[in-house]
Each structure stands twice: as C-alpha cells, then as structure tokens.
C-alpha cells in the first residue's frame, strides 16, 4: 500500500513487500486470550540492491529490529512477502529454501550476548558451516582461519574464548561468523553501537572494505544518524512500524520532507560547537505512542510540529498519508510534505559541505 519506488532500475536483490509483523498481547494463564496486537511492522515495503547499503533509522519501538529479524527468518511475518533474487522466502524454518536463507545473515548489537561464552571463538565461527554440512572438519578449520584474517584478526584467535577478547574483537568475530556462508546480504542491527568511538571507526571501515571486496549488501539498522549517513547509499526512516521517508542518503540529510525526519535530524547533536550554536532545534513533545494502539490517520500527527503550524488540519488525524514523490528516489509519507518551510529545513538540518551525490557512494580508496 505504501510502496515507495526504488531508484534502482535493475531487479532488487532483496525485496520486502507489504510486510506485517504483529505480536499478540495475551492475558490470563490458563485461558490465554489475545487482547490486542502490537503492530511492530505494519505494511512496510523496501528494496535492497546488490552492493547497496540501506540505512534504517528510527527510535526504539519503531520496528526496525523486528524488520531485520523477519528478513533473516528469525521471526515469522504475519503477512506480506520477502523476495530474495525474485523468489519468495518461506517463513518455515525447515523449508526447502534453506539454502536461500543462508544468503541472509545477521550481525547483532551485543557481541557478548551473541557468542556462547563456553565455546572457543573458532567453534562459534564454524557453527553455521557445521549446521549446513559444509566441508570436512579440516576444511572448516581452514575456513575459520581465513575468515579471522578477513575481519582483521589472526588465526590464533580461534582458540580463544569470547571473554579473552575486547569488545571490538568480539564484534569482528560476530562479523566473521556472519560471513562464513558467503552471504549476499548482511542485516547489521546496531552492530557498532556498543563500541567505543575509536574502535567503532575501525569496524565501520572494515564493513566498507568487505562490501567493496565482496559486493555485500547491508541493511544497516542504527539509531546513530551520523554513522548511518556515513555508510548508507539510501536511508529509510521508520516511525511506529512504517517507513515515513526514504531517499538517497545525501538527499535525506539535506532536504528532509517528513516532519518527523526533520525533527530527528534537528535533535541529533553535531560534534562541532560552531554549528551547534547556530542550529535551530525542533523538540518534539512527549514520547512515541504505544505501537499496540497507533494513532489513527498519520501516525505522527500527535507529535507533529508541522500540523500545528498549519492549524491542525483534520486530514492528518483522519487519513493515512501515502508516499509522496519529492524527487527521484525520494518519497515522504506526509500529506503536507511539500509545505515543510525551506528555512526550517535549512536551519535544522546539518549543513552539507558536499554537493548532493547519486545513490551510489564512491568506493573507499
């Protein structure tokens, strides 16, 4: 229903069509009954091309993690389809498309929690190979050494336990494990958020290097807008289970049209005191609404500054906005997307030093 067009003309590597993931809210122990649904992902469509990075931003509860988990098959979708190379992926775990599933891998936020503390690092990295009956024991061991070198560790690390590694090293191990089956797509869910600044930069560079070498596609889920901008070709902004705006990274950060995106960008502190002093901020009132009972009409209307400015038009509360075309590959789901005042866009949004570039980032040199 809200399918924003993709700028890429070639068929998408991964396509999500009108995906819904609802969680039942139950009451009672013996006679469990469903009293409601949390609409974690609610009618969402998204495309990802080969060697492309799509950044997914949004606040907690916006459904970005749920979307990532549904894509890699960790959560069954309520409805909708996920197409990989044009073929639908089944929600069943032991389905015959399991081979297709191995092409979609995930890197988690907390490497301490996602590695078994009682397993040597080598065993964790080899697990996906073992589970999928790839190679002999010796071949798997060789592959683990190779993978460790790919992520910038030494083969000797295979014999260590997770607690013997630093946070950055553990995240490299998580990445090596995700790469074990040569995936085409990696869903990185807050993969660098827990790392210290100097280590985070190392892992970000590694992600870019791997993408250039292996034509990997990333769905990069993060709340850090600066990191998302740095890594992404396109960025999708989520609010309460839906994508509210989608554009090439440079366009989104210089010409945001959805009032939510504008306020999100204005809220992020910029590490430059001169810029900070001159910026205007739109501080949103209140917290994001409960995803179990999203507001009718536009889901953002309860906190929307633009609606207030326009004299609270009824339409926002009554009618769900469709994605409006802003420019090539740039859509915003707002009835009044074209009425975001230019001075607000310019003063709240981070000033860009570079001219707006196309959807493909220049390769790292």
């Amino acid at each position: 229903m809200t399918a924003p067009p993709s700028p890429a003309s070639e068929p998408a590597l991964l396509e999500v069509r009108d995906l819904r993931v609802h969680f039942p809210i139950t009451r009672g122990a013996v006679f469990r009954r469903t009293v409601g649904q949390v609409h974690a992902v609610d009618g969402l469509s998204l495309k990802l091309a080969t060697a492309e990075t799509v950044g997914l931003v949004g606040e907690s509860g916006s459904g970005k993690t749920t979307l990532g988990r549904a894509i890699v098959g960790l959560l069954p979708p309520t409805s909708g389809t996920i197409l990989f190379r044009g073929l639908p992926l089944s929600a069943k775990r032991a389905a015959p498309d399991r081979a297709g599933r191995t092409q979609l891998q995930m890197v988690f936020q907390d490497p301490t929690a996602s590695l078994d503390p009682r397993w040597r690092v080598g065993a964790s990295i080899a697990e996906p190979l073992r589970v999928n009956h790839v190679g002999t024991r010796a071949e798997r061991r060789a592959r683990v050494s190779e993978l460790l070198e790919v992520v910038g560790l030494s083969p000797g690390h295979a014999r260590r336990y997770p607690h013997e590694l630093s946070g950055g090293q553990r995240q490299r191990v998580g990445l090596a494990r995700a790469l074990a089956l040569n995936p085409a797509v990696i869903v990185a869910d807050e993969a660098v958020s827990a790392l210290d600044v100097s280590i985070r930069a190392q892992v970000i560079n590694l992600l870019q290097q791997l993408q250039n070498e292996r034509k990997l596609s990333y769905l990069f889920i993060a709340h850090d807008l600066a990191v998302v901008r740095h890594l992404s070709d396109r960025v999708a902004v989520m609010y309460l289970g839906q994508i509210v705006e989608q554009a090439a990274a440079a366009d989104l950060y210089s010409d945001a049209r959805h009032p939510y995106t504008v306020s999100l960008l204005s809220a992020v502190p910029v590490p430059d005191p001169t810029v900070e002093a001159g910026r205007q901020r739109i501080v949103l009132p209140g917290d994001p609404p409960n995803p179990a009972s999203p507001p009718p009409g536009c889901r953002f209307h309860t906190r929307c500054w633009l609606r207030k400015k326009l004299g609270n038009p009824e339409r926002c509360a009554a009618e769900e906005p469709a994605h409006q075309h802003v420019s090539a590959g740039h859509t915003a789901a707002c009835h009044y997307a074209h009425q975001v005042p230019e001075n607000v866009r310019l003063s709240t949004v981070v000033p860009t030093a570079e001219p707006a570039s196309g959807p493909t980032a220049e390769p790292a040199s």
Partner: protein
Amino acid sequence: MSVDGRAPTATGDPVLRVRDLIVRFDSGRNVVRAVNGVSFDLEAGGALGLVGESGSGKSVTSLAILRLLPRPTAKIVAGEIWLGDRDLIQLSDREMRRLRGKEMSLVPQDPLSGLNPVLTIGEQVVETLRAHEDMRRREARDRATELLSTVGIPRPRDQLDRYPHQFSGGMRQRVLIAIALALRPTLLIADEPTTALDVTVQAQVLELLHELTAQRGTAILLISHDLGIMARMTRRIMVMYAGYVVESAPTAEIFARPGHPYTAGLLRSIPRVGDAGRPLTPIAGSPPEPDWVPRGCPFAPRCAWALDVCWHEMPPLEPMEAVTFSRDPRPGRHLLACHNPVAADEVEGGKPLRPGFHAAPPPEDGLVPQGTT
C-alpha cells in the same frame, strides 16, 4: 530555544576544585589505577565536559567527587576535592550524606536503576526534600508537584502516586532531574544522562538540563562519550585516557585545534558531514587493559606521533604553546599532556605530516607489568 553556550552566570570563583586525585581499585588479585592525578576547576554556573572511552576513569572521577566509590575495593589514595571551602575527602560519611542531594547531586545514566521501584514517584521526591529540609509532608508534596511541573511532566499531581515502571524512559529521567535539582545544588554531575534515551527524547532532556542549570547558576559536570552532546552542552572539555587528563581546553578550541593525538584521533573517528562514504581514520589498537601500568604515556602504543621519550616518561599537563583559535572572548587555558603535539596542519588528516617521521617503536622493556611500582 537554542543552547548556545552558557548564560553569563559563570563567575570566576570555582565551585569545585579537584587537585591531584588518585583513585585505585584493589581487588586483592590486581590493582587498577583508575584515576592518576586528575586536577581541574569548575566555576559557578560553568559547564565542564568529561570525555573518554570506557575505562578512561571519567565515571570513577565523578563517583570520587560524590564519595560514592564502591567499598572496600576502591580507594582515594591521594588528592583534594574542594566543594566551596570544604575538602570532601576529609568529611565524615554523615557530613557527606548531608551534602549529597543538597549541594551536589547526580543524574545517573540509567533512569530505572536510579529510582526505587517499590516507592511512588511522589514518595521519592518528598523523601529527598524532607531528608534535607524541615518540611511538613503536605508542604513537601506541594513542592514535589511544582518540581515535576518544572521538568515538564504533565498532570504532576496525579503522577505523584504512580510508580517508576509506569513512566517511560524519558519521563523517568525527568523525575531524576527533578530530584537532583530539588534543593538547588551548586553542582550537578550528569553521568551519560541521555545515553539510554532516544534521539528526540534526548533533545528534550538536554534542553531541560541546560535551561534549569543556566537559570539557577548550577555548575554542571557532564560525562559523555558523545562529542555532539559535548559540543552542545559544555564550555570546556577535559579529555581523559587511562586515568589521565591528556587535554583540557575551551570547547570550541578542542574541536578546532586539538593538540593531543588521542583527541585528534577521536575527532577523526566520528563520521562527519561532507565525507560520507570515505573511510574514517580510526585510532590503531584498543584501549589498554585496566590493570596495565605504562611507564610512559599510556597512549604511546596507539600513537602515530610517539617519540622515544613517550615510552619512558608521562608528560605533565601544561599550557599548550600556541593558542591559535578561540571564539570565546575569555579563552581560558589550553592544557595538554603530550611530548609531541599534533601540529595545526596535521589535525585534518589525522596523521603526522613531517617528512620521514615514524612513530617510535616500543623499547624492549617498555611495557612494565603490574606490580613493579
């Protein structure tokens, strides 16, 4: 409303003076030198930021000031902490209890663990007020209602009877700010006050913290690893590494003209507008193990500017020679602990540009193991 620097309430006399603070953790098995001789001043109404990665000693410094270090493992080995005219290290626990909350207070990182889950919000605010001031219950409740309304909590009187779990993260953090500012302290310590919050809620909380502290002339010591928050909220920044202050300067100057290779490296490690897609310049290696005792500068193993002397001798924190940039009319001093500072033209590239220069390799005996000093 913009948060551009601090209101002119900042005066010359320091509210807080820390001198040569040394804190160690002794677990019996090993000793961690968490804070190694930290000194700084914070003037009334000032805003000082403490930047550093995990294990740099920034939180330990703040806990030492509040005298809330875990006992018996952590110990203030030496130093002075002056709040006004009292040296906190000399005070008894009883005297400290009277001070905490009233003259200095803390906004913790995690709003859930900062509140008691089995007491109502009202009980917790009232408790703080009545612990320090002679107030009737009714009077304290009225004051609590007023406080909650100051921090922007809607329908404050009804909220008093609710429990922390019924509040969202942002609302809990507001309650903690209300409690922290209830008695108009002269010093507020905020340790990663918005790390657990979403961006839009973070903006609300930062705005609130700024407004309230500026209005009341409360000095704020802000601890964060987020350089964006530092740029927005502080007037001066102190950079810590492995328990040492390696650089300290007015906020604008730290960003425009960092002198320490670590500071310059941090600034080059964060993605910046304008170079999307280009690789970042990270700092090599990882932060040291907590129980590692360097003989020289603790940053030497990761430093591209390292000289031979760096491996043997920790440089003192001294005024940097050429102060080249400042937007602040009263610039304050730029202090630096480095044998081989980053030159102005090296800041952008994040590496030394002198022809033929290579970082000095570690000497054979450079890494002194724990327990030899």
